[in-house]
């Protein structure tokens, strides 16, 4: 994985652990099983980046059994502490 993709992957794991209560190992297994990071085309990568890692984490957590998870106001829009986390990361990188 290139650094950009690796960073995105780490962010998805972070969300699965923080907001899904999973261990990092289980989060890694769920992502691997989904083949979310195995692309058939460059467009697939582009579309992955078109959403926040938080969205993909919630999709992996709830998508199959509870596809309308985004109607739960506690799950969508993304929680403020997640957005603050991204902002802090940005400030640190700058």
């Amino acid at each position, binding site marked *: 994985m290139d650094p950009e993709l690796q960073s*995105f992957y780490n*962010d998805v794991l972070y969300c699965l652990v923080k907001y899904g209560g999973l261990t990092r190992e289980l989060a890694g297994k769920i992502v691997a099983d*989904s*083949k*979310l990071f195995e692309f*058939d*085309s460059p*467009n*697939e990568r*582009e*579309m*992955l*980046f*078109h*959403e*926040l*890692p938080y969205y*993909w984490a919630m*999709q*992996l957590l709830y*998508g*199959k059994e509870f*596809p*309308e998870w*985004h109607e739960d106001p506690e799950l*969508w*829009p*993304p929680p403020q502490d997640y*957005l603050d986390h*991204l*902002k802090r*990361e*940005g*400030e640190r*990188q*700058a």
Partner: protein
Amino acid sequence: MAECAQCGQTIARESQKTTVKCWIPSCGNSVTVHQGCAAAKAIACPVHKDVKKPKTRSRNKKKDAPAEATPVIAEVPSAPVKVDAPSKPLVAETPPEPKPVTKPPEPKKSEALALPTASKTATVTEPSKEVCAKPKLPPLVVYHATATPFDKIDLSYGRTALDFNPKNKKCFYAGGSLEDAQAWAKLQAKTKGGKPIIYKYEIDREELAKLQGYKYYYNQTTGKFIKSQPIPPKSGEPTLNGVDAYRDWQNTVKKGRANTLELPGYDYVEGPMLLNPTPVKRGAPAKAGKHQIALSSQKAVDIFNNSPRTKLDVI
């Protein structure tokens, strides 16, 4: 013996007789006149003899055209849809039902452009209907990707806080790129299960232009960025170009994603998708991608639901 359609006199000899086409472009009738009368302009057939002839047949109507929505759309290039047309389809398409062809009698393109001028001065109703026919805009072709089949669009299934979502409102999204739609459908199937599906919509732009909306045009190759006037046009909201249009778009998608975008009364927004929401949340500039349209009102959804739709299975 025939009567001359121009001067009304009887044509005494066969050798004096000639035929010319009726001046009404879509008519096609021939009329008999004296050879000497044939040089006259705008000779009408008996059906159209009462149609008042225009003083000039200007082809440039822009100056006189009413400020209606359709020309604004026509001026904004709809290239993204064309640019994104697939070179090698990766989907199995069920052919759409053939559309009935309503072919008017052989009008040339140049004649069609001159038609609106004639209609302005027409005094009879029936012929002017044909004369008024405007060239039809090509349909807006967009794709919606999903892993959950559905019959009609229902806004309640959408999400809030996306690129062009007004505050607390759900939208239905579709895009001009088939490749992006395929990719999105696959990602949905990977995370939700089910089979990736694409719905192709062919939307009559003139129907869409009856609603309130605006469009950002972005060409990924040239970097050209334009924000159209609102449709229909509103005073005080000019077309934006270049950096101004980009900043306006960036502001819109940031607010859309933060669920703070105020768009009272708008039915839809068209423009490029945001490619990098995560870096944007970290403070990076927004990157524009390919074309998408967000419908936020039932009126806009109704247009889509009443338009031709083709289901494509992603292979």
